[in-house]
């Protein structure tokens, strides 16, 4: 079995190369060619990593062959393997969608380089094993996301982008301050070494506080979520889908890494419960705002805030459950599954919304009545994806909610049980509010001229929604590796590996 570890840097360098090529060869056909090649490469790599994950998760790919504390290592754990696969699959869908979405947009040549760079940033973040490197990756994602949000040039989009930029920068600076404190107190930045060196030192808790507050700002949890609806709302459809489904998850993944893997001893127990509380508040507040808001994309954005709240319930459950917090076990599987289900469902919703806006020219809910007649496919997508969000049985969302619920019940946390159920109910409230509007006959003939053609975009969104439902069935295969704790084997530093020639593998 070839050692997939050597494929790891592919994840990062292939998108950067693609970005450069797209910048240099501007016109359409070449961009399509580059994108297709790169996407297929990424898919192959991530599948190999997923298959071979048993021994990959033990090793670190040392860049520039300097041992980790000094150099930077790339490594993948059981969670990131799934996330990497998810990212490559989803980005493939988004790129295909973007081809159609930006077909007649003059700014298209400028879109692709930034888009590819954003993908590179995401992979860099998932693969990196070094605290400061994570900061750079965060910045990469942040800045390119801002550029994409501001892509369609309207004043609202620009203001939303500016606000998003401020939030991003402040969040990253907080994170940098945390890293600086860590470096000062422990002298190393490597994720594998930090947990071993760390002793009971208040500075570590302080660092954790800074890092967490920075990342919470970037994950848009309840009190600090004000920027997300505007940013995701006014971005073009594929970008908002990417933001909701992946970008926001990256900062959540980081919080999970710091709280569960890197600095578990120093995280005060109250901290876990506080995160849980934040999660619960954001579920309720997000759903309530989603129900109240008028524009379709804002509604979907607020539902992202709500679903992120579900993810944060992982922390109290993890602490309560096994006492030994780690990036595996049934609680973590539940939240990983929720990430998967939410990613597919949310992207389907945003792509469907994109299609609706493409046809109607606006996404103002009050004027969208009778949607089902003009764009039946996107309403159907909306229904299926909504079902997965609410957690109705056949969907992936149901499995995730089921796992979360059984965890909550096992750990006797009745408050969480109520929050989960209430969240599901409120989700159904705003999803069915939209469906009601879709089904109602248009009172007065809305003055917009509606192009009735069922564009390919709607079918793309439908495929994604079906994936969200399909997740409900073969949960077994995805969850098995997550459940089992990784077999801890001493870390052979690659340096000492005999001649693992990167290119040798191909020759």
């Amino acid at each position, binding site marked *: 079995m070839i050692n997939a570890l050597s494929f790891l840097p592919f994840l990062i360098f292939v998108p950067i190369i693609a970005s450069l090529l797209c910048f240099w060869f501007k016109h359409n056909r070449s961009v399509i060619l580059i994108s297709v090649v790169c996407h297929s490469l990424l898919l192959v790599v991530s599948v190999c990593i997923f298959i071979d994950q048993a021994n990959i998760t033990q090793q670190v790919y040392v860049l520039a062959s300097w041992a980790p504390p000094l150099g930077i290592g790339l490594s993948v754990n059981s969670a990131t393997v799934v996330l990497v696969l998810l990212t490559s699959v989803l980005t493939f869908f988004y790129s295909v969608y973007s081809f159609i979405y930006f077909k007649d947009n003059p700014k298209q040549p400028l879109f692709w380089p930034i888009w590819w760079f954003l993908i590179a940033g995401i992979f860099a973040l998932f693969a990196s094993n070094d605290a400061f490197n994570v900061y750079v990756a965060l910045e990469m994602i942040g800045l390119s996301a801002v550029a994409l949000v501001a892509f369609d040039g309207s004043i609202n989009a620009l203001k939303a982008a500016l606000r998003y930029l401020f939030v991003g920068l402040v969040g990253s600076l907080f994170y940098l301050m945390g890293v600086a404190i860590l470096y000062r107190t422990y002298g190393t930045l490597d994720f594998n070494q930090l947990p071993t060196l760390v002793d009971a030192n208040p500075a570590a808790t302080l660092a954790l506080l800074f890092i967490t507050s920075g990342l919470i700002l970037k994950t848009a949890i309840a009190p600090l979520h004000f920027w997300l609806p505007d940013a995701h709302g006014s971005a073009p459809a594929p970008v908002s889908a990417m933001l909701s489904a992946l970008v926001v998850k990256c900062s959540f993944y980081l919080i999970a890494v710091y709280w569960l893997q890197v600095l578990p001893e120093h995280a005060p127990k109250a901290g876990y419960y506080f995160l849980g509380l934040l999660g619960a508040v954001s579920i309720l507040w997000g759903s309530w705002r989603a129900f109240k808001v008028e524009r379709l994309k804002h509604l979907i954005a607020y539902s992202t805030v709500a679903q992120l709240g579900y993810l944060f319930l992982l922390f109290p459950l993890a602490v309560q459950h096994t006492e030994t917090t780690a990036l595996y076990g049934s609680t973590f599987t539940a939240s990983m599954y929720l990430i998967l289900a939410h990613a597919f469902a949310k992207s389907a919703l945003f792509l469907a919304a994109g299609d609706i806006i493409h046809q109607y020219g606006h996404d103002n809910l009050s004027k969208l009545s*009778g949607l*089902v*007649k003009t764009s039946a496919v996107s309403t159907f997508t909306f229904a299926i994806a909504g*079902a997965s969000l609410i957690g*109705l*049985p*056949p969907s992936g969302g*149901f*499995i995730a*909610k*089921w*796992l979360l*619920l*059984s965890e909550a*019940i*096992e750990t006797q946390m009745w408050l969480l*049980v109520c929050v989960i*159920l*209430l969240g*599901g*109910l409120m989700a*159904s409230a705003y999803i*069915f509010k939209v*469906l*009601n509007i879709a*089904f*109602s*006959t248009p009172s007065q003939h809305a003055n917009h001229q509606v192009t009735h053609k069922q564009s390919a975009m709607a079918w793309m969104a439908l495929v994604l929604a079906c994936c969200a439902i399909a997740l409900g*069935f073969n*949960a*077994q295969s995805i*969850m098995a590796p997550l*459940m089992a704790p990784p077999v801890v084997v001493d870390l052979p530093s690659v340096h000492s590996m005999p001649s693992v020639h990167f290119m040798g593998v191909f020759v």
Partner: protein
Amino acid sequence: MNWQSTLPLLILLSTSVTGILTFFVSEQNKKLRSALNIGGVLCCLILIGVLLNGVFHGESFKTRISLLPNIDLVFHADALSLLFISLSGLLWGLTSIYAVGYLADSKNQSRFFGFFGLCVFATMGIALAGNLITFLIFYELLTLTTFPLVAHKGNSDSIKAAKVYLMYTMGGGALFLAGVVWLKTLAGSLDFVATGVLADLTHLDPTLLQIIFVLIIAGLGVKAALLPLHGWLPVAMAAPAPVSALLHAVAVVKAGAFGIVRVVYDVYGVEFAASLGLTLGLAIAASITIVFGSVRALFQDDIKKRMAYSTVSQVSYIALGTAIAGPIATMGGIVHLVHQGIMKITLFFCAGSFAETLGVKKVSQMQGLGKRMPLTMTAFTIAGLGMIGVPPLAGFISKWHLGLGAVNADMHWVLLVLITSSLLNAAYFLPIFYAAWFKPAPDNWPADKKTTRLETHWMLLLPPLITATLVILAGLFAQSVYSPLSWAQLVSSREYTFIANTSLELAQGQGHLLWLALIIPLVFLVFNFTRVNRFVFHFLPLAALPAIMLALFCESGTSSSIGMVFLGSELSLTHTSRLFLLLSGILWFACALYSTGYIKTESAKRYCGFFLATMVGNFGLVMAQDITGFVAFFTLMSFASYGLITHDKTTAAFAAGKTYFIWVLIGEVCVFAGLTGFLINQSDSISSLPTWAGSMLIIGFGVKCGLFFMHTWLPLAHPVAPVPASALLSAIMVKAGLIGMLNFLPVGQISSLPLAYLLCGLGLMSVFLSAVFGVLQQNAKAVLAYSTISQMGLILTYLGTVFLVPFLTSTATSIPTDISTTLSATLLTTVSTSTAQAHWAMLLPAILAFAVHHSITKAALFLSVGIPIIRHNRIYYPALLLLCLPVLSMAGVVFSSGMFAKALLKTATYNVSWLSLPLSLSSIGTALLMLRFVQLKFRTDTDANASTDSNTAKNRFIAWRRFIPFALLCIASVLSVFVSSTYLNITLSDITINSLLTNIGVLALAIGLFVLIQKIGNKAVLPAGDIIVIYRALAKSLLAVIQQGCMCIGHVYGLFFTVLRQYFGQAYMVIHTWRLARVNTLFTPGLTFTALLVVFAVYLLINQPAS
């Protein structure tokens, strides 16, 4: 995956594939879409058929698909799931046919049928679910698929309905999910096991299980429309008719009930649930819902809203059945699952087609619907009657078993709930039938624009008819192997690990001939509705011939019992029933002949219909030996004779008909209650009939016999009915009450003072008072009616004496007793006290003789009314002579059968000293009545003579048809006692001189009194029916009181909600706006009816049988 495991999947696949494919069918081509749907339905039904006989032959079907580490999707076909799956499969087929017809021209049908198929897919999934988790998944799927159906029309109120529906079902779903997950974490795998999974998991603490049970039942309760969670059902009526038909009859509501059944039996195990005290709570909740649903239905004017509320109450029967932890009650509950489905779907079909064809949406607009859409209305009526629980239909079977089960489980209050809800059902269904059938149709209905012969599109007509016949079949052939009842038996027996076997006895010998007496009139009845009805009218008398032949040639004791019909009905010719059969055969023959001459041809068809139906009821009544058979024929006869009474369609006829109908219903319910009480006690093997059951029987049959306080309908009905009908009414149908008492009262077995006093008291009062009232009447037939009341009073007084026997001195004169009062084994255990037996042995023949005498003479008298005896008419003299015969015989003049019958009665009750005086007084009274009758007869004939042209040829021909039966009966009236005495082998005591003298003295006294009354009394005019006036006043006041009550309840409601609204404000509280229930002008008899029976219910409660 071998065959066993793929079949359930195939079934699920067939429905889902049909659904999904229909989505892609383009809107225009209707053919492809309906073909696809029908194809889907057929292949699904075939698969279910294969599954059915697979299970029947003992194969077990189970498929297991792993979903999560230790959670897997399980489908398995046990008896309960088969019951539900066949129900939903069949009704899906019918509803899709109906839907194709209903939505013919509405838009986006592909979407409708797509979701329709998916909804049934979810229901099938629920039915086949093997464990609680699969059930949960399909339960939620059902919500998702039914939402677009409810919101199909897209207008504002269907969107609101969808919203409300969602709010409830989503809330319920969340609770259910919480409960299931919690149970899963506690109890591990939740596969359905026959006697419950949790029973043997001892380590779980009960309080947790109770909380989980409450959660799960709340979740299921939303769909099963238990009380607090039922709000969505009436609102969801905004959906199109096929949706509300399938949803509220089969899919959604049944899923909830089915869920409750599954959870109580297969998850908790019924004994374990009972031990936790859960079933009692569920029973109380279900009962409250039942009563509440019916009360709310009472006040709804919109048809579909009324149906919705009735669904709310009916579904809780199933929950009630499961909650009463007893095998029979379970059987009742489960069989009601099926029965309620077919009945409710018929109601919705009909409601839908009414709305579709005539735009009739409100109950108040349903006048004359019967005429405009007869077939749909009949289906509606059958289903409605079934809902009420009228004996032969499906509803009765399940209510009967529920009642029986409740009594076995000592939950007597459930019996009360059942009765009140059945009455409430009657209260809100009967006004509809009454308005539809008997009120004139408004003229503003669209003319029958369709050229086809049928009243609506055939697709709207066929499904309700099929389901209506299903209702009848499920009721009639309840015991047959393939009926839902036997299947429910299989299920409940599995639950209680005992097998109640009901074998199928086959009739032996030529017992089948007995059925001939019933079948021939039925055949005539069928022909009546075809084009040959003119012949039917002319050959009407032939219908009565088989009965006469049977009575003459079959020897007594032949009996034929068919297990399938009713609950094992049994017809047999006992000694008494043979006599009565002969008597009624002769009378029906005579009256039929008479009516061919009397009834005008254009109204003949309707007359023959009712005439034949009553005849069947009468003959069946005479011969039936088992309770359900007797009650069924008794009901048939009473309802059919209503048609006879109101034949002339005059306002007086309808008024009389209305009173008759109320009294019939009162009698019906009393008989029903009495018989249940009788049966219950009998099952407790204490032969002593509880007094309340006995009095119920007496009152019930008393209504038919015209006992004093219940007699008010008789003097009203007879004058109004056509002559042959009134002759039959007073001659034979009045005797039905007597037959009932003879069959069911334990005459000769026990002696109970209260019963004796009740019977004799009422009898005596009716003897004297009716004589007084009769004399003051203006109408000849009314006088005859009063004389019938007095004679029947006499007979019943003598019957009453049998209960006094132990208190009398007894002389052991042995008279051969071959009276076989043995009822079928289940009914009566004979505990003979020698004295009572002997006394009864003498009294019975006397009573029978007197009954025969009375019916023949009374018939003759009534027929005479139809024959104008006028001077210059050719038949004047012979008619006059013949008329004297019955008059004299009735008055008991010497050598007439009347005198002999009275003599027999006197000898039989020689030891009852105080009886001789009333006997003689009664003969005076009868004589008075006869004189009054003759006087009135001649007065009417003379002034009628001036107007009628009696001497045309046609008239003469008709006169002949009338004259012959009249003549026959007059002669028979004299000879009847002699003939019957040989049959009853009683020796006629010789006529002593002094009896002759007393006779003549009585006559003279009567004539003197009559002259005296003429002088002083001719001014005092008494309206027919005398104390009915009092009853009417009583009813009016009661109505006023109830209306006031409703008003104040309404105010309280309004007040409560306005306060709530101010306090919470509109934004936060989505208040379900309870429209103040508009009390429409209720059907007055309906109200008296309910009032009366509330009193009866209270009496029932106070006087609990000591068991």
